[in-house]
């Protein structure tokens, strides 16, 4: 089917004048991705998958300027980790930690891509390509074709400390395209932290290959910059008895679209994708789009997304659990909830189940509500002022999502961030 002309035009305009990296070991993958993109075209508002989120800011040839935060307190300080810093999308060796972690091999895409051969060769763009069915994800295809850098991580043992990709923003116009690959070999374990706002506009793809018995924890506080425009895609493939836990915290952000595409390929695997976001004002639009496919026995998946919205903020959740024929004993759970702190804010949700196996337990729910008046009065009757009581109840609302973070210290750090935000925004 021929692409509608507006899509062709938008895609042409978007690519025009961009010097796409030729690539070494990624060369073929980049070329394939570019043809995928040309065949799909960039998203437009009329696309079913973008019904609730206008992609215009993400597909405009240039980003809208977005000021970096004046004071950006680093998070997860005082924690032993290997930090890799990108400033405006450019690797910052000065600010990054030297050294290595036993059982973890780390290279930069931009460096590795000078060579024709690399362990990531069979992976780069592969999970992204697989994730293009049944729904197009053109911004991810663009990323594979255009990524200028990223981190390639191969884990062969139990990593003694987390790898921390820290994004920093210094200018107001960077258009950042990064592509990370995380390959966790059989039985290996890693915690990956991703923090901060990479640039005015960001397109990030993560491809996670989690082998049999491997564990990957991913915790991602996305920074607080107000004007940022963000599209992220997390593609994960899970082997037998493997485990993925991914948690994203988003505060502020003019437009954020976080997609997670999870393939449960091995038996007895477990994938938890969760997120909390807080937004204040009409210039906040946050979209979580999740697609979990069960294609093996006895898989367990959870999607837990909570949103706190006020003063005209908009939150979107599109979540799907697809259970393929034969994926018996699947246990799939999905919950998306919003707390609307006023009548102006809006939560749009599209929860979906598609099940082709008969012996499964899947449930989903979506709710939208206000602070409980009863609970608020109970707290106030004990002497807690209205603002403190409201914030306490708001944190309580977010608690179920934060519980998805396995590490208490990480969870506490995020809870502190949320508390700070709530105190500033009430």
């Amino acid at each position, binding site marked *: 089917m021929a692409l509608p002309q507006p899509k062709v035009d938008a895609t042409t305009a978007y690519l025009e004048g961009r010097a796409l990296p030729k690539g070494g070991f990624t060369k073929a993958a980049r070329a394939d991705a570019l043809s995928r993109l040309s065949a799909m075209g960039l998203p437009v508002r009329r696309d079913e998958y973008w019904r609730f989120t206008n992609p215009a800011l993400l597909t405009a040839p240039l980003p809208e300027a977005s000021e970096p935060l004046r004071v950006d307190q680093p998070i997860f300080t005082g924690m032993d980790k290997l930090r890799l810093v990108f400033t405006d999308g450019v690797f910052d060796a000065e600010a990054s930690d030297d050294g290595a972690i036993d059982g973890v091999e780390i290279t930069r895409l931009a460096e590795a891509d000078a060579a024709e051969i690399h362990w990531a060769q069979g992976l780069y763009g592969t999970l992204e390509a697989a994730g293009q069915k049944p729904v197009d994800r053109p911004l991810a295809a663009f990323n594979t074709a255009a990524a200028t850098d990223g981190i390639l991580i191969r884990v062969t043992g139990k990593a003694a400390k987390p790898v921390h990709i820290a994004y920093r923003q210094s200018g107001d116009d960077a258009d950042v395209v990064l592509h990370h690959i995380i390959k966790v070999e059989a039985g290996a374990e890693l915690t990956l932290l991703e923090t901060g706002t990479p640039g005015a506009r960001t397109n990030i793809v993560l491809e996670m290959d989690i082998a049999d018995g491997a564990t990957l924890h991913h915790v991602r506080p996305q920074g607080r910059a107000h004007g940022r425009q963000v599209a992220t895609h997390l593609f994960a493939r899970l082997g037998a008895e493997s485990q993925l836990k991914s948690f994203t915290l988003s505060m502020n952000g003019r437009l954020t679209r976080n997609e997670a595409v999870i393939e449960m390929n091995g038996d007895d695997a477990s994938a938890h994708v969760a997120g909390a976001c807080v937004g204040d004002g009409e210039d906040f639009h946050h979209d979580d789009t999740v697609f979990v496919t069960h294609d093996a026995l006895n898989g367990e998946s959870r999607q837990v997304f909570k949103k706190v919205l006020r003063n005209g903020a908009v939150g979107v959740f599109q979540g799907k659990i697809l259970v393929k024929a034969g994926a018996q004993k699947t246990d799939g759970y999905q919950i998306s909830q919003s707390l609307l702190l006023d009548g102006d804010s809006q939560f749009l949700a599209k929860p979906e189940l598609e099940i082709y196996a008969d012996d499964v337990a899947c449930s989903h729910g979506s709710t939208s509500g206000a602070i409980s008046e009863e609970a608020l009065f109970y707290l106030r*009757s004990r002497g807690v002022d209205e603002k403190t009581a409201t914030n306490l109840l708001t944190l309580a609302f977010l608690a179920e999502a934060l519980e998805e973070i396995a590490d208490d210290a990480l969870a506490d750090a995020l809870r502190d961030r949320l508390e700070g935000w709530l105190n500033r925004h009430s």
Partner: protein
Amino acid sequence: MLEIKNLAVDLEEEDKSILKGVDLTIEPGMVHAIMGPNGSGKSTLSYVLSGKDGYEVTGGSATLDGADLLEMEPEERAAAGLFLAFQYPVEIPGVGNMTFLRTAVNAQRKARGEEELSAGDFLKVVREKAKALKIDSDMLKRPVNVGFSGGEKKRNEILQMAMLEPKMCVLDETDSGLDVDAMKLVAEGVNALRSEGRSFLVITHYQRLLDHIKPDVVHIMANGRIVKSGGPELALEVENNGYADILAEVA
């Protein structure tokens, strides 16, 4: 201590009158009980005193040590020393009981210009008071009232009261849902708090609680008014004969 004069209250939503001129004065150190048929307005009185939304005061006044309660926010009333043990304690998922107690205690201390309790001091006091009420550490860790049995919720109310040390305690049917032993525990908790400067208003349907918490004055509320007041013998009369005689007498 507490002075209620000709208090009249309507429901905000439905133009319905609930309290039709309540008069009640409680001196420091006194224990007053209110009994009365279902729907007579006892809980409404307790809610209006503590500042719940949804009621419109159409006349009269309520003061605590001379300060106009009705002008204050609920948290200000609490800081001024008013406490309500709810007839139906509220469940708050996601807020730990301990966090809740510490937040409340420190909020009140702050409002009164006192220093906040340190985490260590706070813990020590809570553990001690919880023990007396047979509230185990598991109940302190769990979210406020979530999954608590009826009796556990009521004991948790008394624990809050013991921690907050209010001067005017309103107990709305704290005895309902309690087994005999729990009732004794609660009564002991209340009696331990009795002091010259602290007053109680105990709403109950049963004489039994009043065997343990000896009231100085018993009031009968009917149809939004206090229709009769007397000594402890009034509670016995209700226990034996119900309300029919009393209501007929005042009609």
